[in-house]
Structure formats: C-alpha cells, structure tokens
C-alpha cells in the first residue's frame, strides 16, 4: 500500500512538472492560480478541517498578503521580504481574529469572520491613499532571483510550484506533529482535549493564525501573477469559493483542498462550452455532491473504494437478539 502511495505521489509530482509544457500562456496561468488557491485552501483546511473552526475570512487574508506584497515590491523591496511581512501581518491579524473563536463557535464564528471580510473589503475599497481604492494597484513587478526572471509565465509557474511544495511540506509536518494532533483533538471534542492537558486556548488561536498565514502566502503569490489587484478580488464571494474548495475536496483530508481547488478553478474552464449556463451547472453539481456525499470528493473516492472491497458479512441469525 505504501508503495502504491509513493508511486502515486511521484506520478503527481511529474504531472505537475510536465503540465506547463502542454499548455499555452493562458493554460499555464490557470495552473498557477490553481496552485495559489490550493495554498489558501490548505490554510483554511487547517483552520476548518483539522481544528474545526469555521472561517469565512480567508479571502481577506489573501487580500492582506497581496496588498502587502504589492506595496512593498512596488517600492523596490525584494519579493522574499514582502512575503515574510505579508505572512507575519496575516499571522498577527489571524491571532486577533481567533479571539472571538474562544468565546463563540460554529455559525456565530462564521458570522464574525464574515463581518471581518466585509470590513476588510471596505477598508481596501475606501482607503485610496494606501490601496488605490476601487482602481486597485497596477504594475506589480514579478520577482527576480539573480539572473532568473519570472516574467515568463512558465518560469512563474515553476516558481509557484516550488513555493507550493514548500508550503505543502510545511503543512504535512504541522499535521503530523503533536500540534496537528492537538488540532484534531480540538475539533473532535474541545472539552475532553482540555481535560487531557491540551491548551485549547493557544491551539485555537494558532489554528487561526497559521491558516491566516497560508492565506497571506497565497495572496503574495497572487499579486505578482496577475500584476494588478483590486478590492473585488478579495470579497466574501472569494472566501466562500475557498470554503467551497475545502468542503468539496474533503475537509480534514491532506489532499482534499488540492482536489477541491483544482475542481473550482478548472471546472469553469471545461464548462466554457456551456457559456452562460456554466454557473448553473456548477452550482447544480455542488448541490448534488453535497446531498449525495457530504464528505466531499475524497470521501466519495473512499466510499467507492470500500464499495469494491470485500467485506466481512455478519450472519444475521447469529446476531445478538436475532429472532428466528
């Protein structure tokens, strides 16, 4: 089984490396935005899927990361410093936003984070002196690393891929570490986790802060890719889109958000032939998936696999309390 898993991972990696060579500039752009949204979804997966704290603020963290990167790189500072600043800022804001989560849960938390997204959007739109208001910021430079420029779309893809792999490795490490287990304990039963010595207060805040930092990282990659940012790219709809990626892919699964982001980003491209109807088809598919399999795509795959596996069947007449 382990061999199958490693081969699959390797095959996936090879596919990721080969993919841009089969695509023109636009296809490569779509691939880039898939990886970038996958990073944001990964962060939300940590907050939601592992720690069980619902957040509708991921788009505003992307926004914070994107605006920080844009402002700093346009001022001539190298991308690497701007991404550190962006992620740091998101981490701090995430910590602060985590405080309500200590008091309220579930749908209340959803609405507090929703309110935060709306407020962040208002600030981005109305504070013209900093963010350029509705017109946004234009002409964000792409990072250069020594002689290698990322102006070429394919180069930018590989740059994104490297960052993505680092982020993924970091995520894998967090989930496997004692912290990851504490996150899961928090999701499954916060009171029991607390009684077993998990500092639920710190873990809740960390779940928010780390998830937010991932959002910031994805924003920092988004700004140089599009080279133009405006407040409309970080509205509530985008937060919901990232939430959709996590839930459709399978929240709480390592590869769930990857699949989910792929579906949410790629499906519109495949449904292009349907033109105006594509959003309808798309929404219809999501409803059907949620009704038929609420655990998302990964859950669907697992469901299908167990359907084909041989099962031990209990003899009905030997069951306890069976009536003959």
């Amino acid at each position, binding site marked *: 089984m382990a061999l199958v898993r490693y081969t699959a991972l390797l095959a996936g990696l090879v596919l990721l490396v080969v993919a841009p060579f089969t695509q023109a500039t636009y296809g490569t752009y779509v691939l880039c935005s898939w990886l970038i949204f996958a990073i944001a979804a990964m962060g939300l997966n940590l907050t939601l899927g592992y720690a069980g704290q*619902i957040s509708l603020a991921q788009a505003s963290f992307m926004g914070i990361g994107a605006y920080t990167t844009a402002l700093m790189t346009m001022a001539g500072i190298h991308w690497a410093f701007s991404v550190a600043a962006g992620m740091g800022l998101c981490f701090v804001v995430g910590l602060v936003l985590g405080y*309500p989560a200590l*008091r*309220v849960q*579930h*749908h*209340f938390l*959803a*609405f*507090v984070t*929703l*309110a*935060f997204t*709306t*407020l962040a959007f*208002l600030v981005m*739109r*109305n504070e013209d002196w900093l963010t350029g208001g509705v017109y946004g910021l234009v002409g964000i430079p792409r990072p250069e690393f020594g002689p290698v420029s990322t102006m070429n779309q394919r180069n930018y893809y590989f740059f994104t891929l490297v960052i993505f792999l680092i982020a993924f490795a970091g995520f894998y490490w967090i989930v496997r570490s004692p912290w990851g287990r504490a996150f899961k304990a928090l999701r499954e*039963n916060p*009171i*029991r986790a607390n009684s077993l010595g998990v500092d639920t207060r710190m873990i809740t805040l960390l779940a928010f802060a780390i998830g937010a930092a991932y959002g910031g990282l994805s924003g920092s990659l988004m700004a140089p890719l599009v080279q133009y940012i405006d407040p409309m790219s970080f509205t509530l709809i985008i937060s*919901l889109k990232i*939430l*959709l990626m996590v*839930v*459709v892919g399978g*929240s709480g699964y390592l590869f769930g958000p990857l699949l989910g982001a792929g579906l949410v980003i790629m499906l519109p491209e495949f449904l292009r032939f349907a033109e*105006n*109807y594509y*959003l*309808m088809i*798309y*929404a*219809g598919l*999501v*409803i059907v998936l*949620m*009704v*038929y399999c*609420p*655990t998302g795509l990964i859950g669907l795959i697992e469901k299908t696999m167990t359907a084909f596996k041989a099962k031990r069947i209990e003899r009905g007449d030997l069951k306890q309390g069976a009536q003959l």
Partner: protein
Amino acid sequence: MSEFMQVLISGLATGSIYALAAIGFTLLWQASQTINFAQGEFVMLPAFFVLIGMHVLGLGLLPAITLALVVSVALLGLVFKRVIIQPMLPHGVLPIVMATIALAILMRELVKEFYSAEAQPFPSMFSESTFRFLGATVSYQDVGNLVVSAIAITALQLFLGRTRTGRCMQATAQNPAVAEILGVNIQRMVLYTFMINAALATIASVLISPIYLAKFSIGEPIGLVAFLAAIVGGFNQVRGALAGGLLIGVIDNMSAAYLSSEYRIAGPMILLIIIVLLRPQGLLGTAEGRTV
C-alpha cells in the same frame, strides 16, 4: 427633528421587512439546525413568480401574489426540505451551508438567464402618495409595509402559541427526542417550518420589491441583513429576530443619513461583532446549553 423622524419611520418600515426574512431564518435554525445561506434568494425569487403570473399568464396583482405564494411554499418549502436538506441533516452544518450557497448561485443564475438581468419595476399594493406626521413626510407605502409585516408576525405568533400544531412545532424546536416520544410527528413539524419560512419570504418579497425593484442580485444584501438581524436579536427567539430586524433597518438608515455612505454597511457589521462578543445569544435570546 423632523428629519430624524423621517429616517426613523422609513428605517422601521424596511426593518419590518428584514424582520420577516430574519424570522424565517431563525425558525429554520430552531427546527432543524439549518443555516439557510439562500435566504436572500428566497426573498428575491417570489417577486419573479408574481411578475411571471402578471406578464406571462396575464393575472391581476392579487391573484399573481396568491399564485406566487403557492408556488413558493411548494418549491422553497416542500421541495427544498425533502430534496436538499433532508439527506444532509445527519451530516452536520457544513454540507448544508455549502449546498445552500450553491443553491443561492443557482437561483440567481436561473433568474438572470431565463427572466432578465435588468431590474424589473414591481407594482406596489399601496399608493405612493405621502402625508405629514409629526413634521415628517411619511408615505402610505411605508405604513402599509409596517402594517402587513405586523399582521404576518402577529398571526405567526398566535399560530405558534395558541394552536395545537404550533405548540407541537415549538416542542420540536426545543427538544425533538422528547417531542417524538410524546407523539409529535417531528418530520412533519419541520416540514411545516420550512413552508412557513417560504411564505414569510414571499410576503417580504412582495413588500420589498416595489422599493428596491426586482432584480436577480438583490438577494445577497437582503440575506446578509437577515443574518445580521437574526444574530443581533437572538437566534432562538422569534421576537428577537423581530427586534433585530427593526434595529438593523433603523441603524442602516441612520448610518446612511448621518455617517458616510461609503462605510454604510460597516455600522451594522461592527454592531454584529460587538453583540457576538459581549452577548453571543443575542439581545433577546436565551443561552443555549453546551453538550459534552
């Protein structure tokens, strides 16, 4: 002062319509722990049923409204509950949230594609002429909206408190297991709740569309305000949602009139954060016990 009165009265009139949507929202939450992210679209859609009844079938305003009520209760109540919500109920809140968000997109796109993307004028049931009251100019439309919402809410309260079915619905909301043991058909009660929600949404739709025009995208702001009203007032109380709706309507109008219009929505949002942090059960709500 007269300006203040004017802002207050029109705030109360729109607030009472918000309250209708918010009450439906809290009813669904109480009965089945369903958070309906498509609530705004539930208010948007019936107006188009009315328009179809008038322009395609050639009915008058009142028959068209009756038709819209029947269609909405069947589609947004019965079909919504049976086909979409029922299979997901055992799986917790999140899949329902995602599915209702998708449903909202679906409804919006259907209207945009098959009716019109333009804002449609919508006939009002009341005259738009005005009269003077305490120095303020008040339109009959505002008064009519207030009266109709008040009648609808009073009727709902009487139904819930004074009839056998209504009491069974309350029992279902409070403790489904015990209610079932005592012989209440809880699935049917939940279904009634969904149908009442659809009816309230239809009334809200008919009242609000003459003001904001009928448009496919109107659902998003209305849904947001309904959530706000429900949370501010208290999620588990009908009168809480009523108070929340009125309060949000007034605050929204006040901040548009006296603060900057750019940060108009920020007022209600900040109120929301403060309420959730200081009094999570809402202004009139009672705290829900937590289970281990």
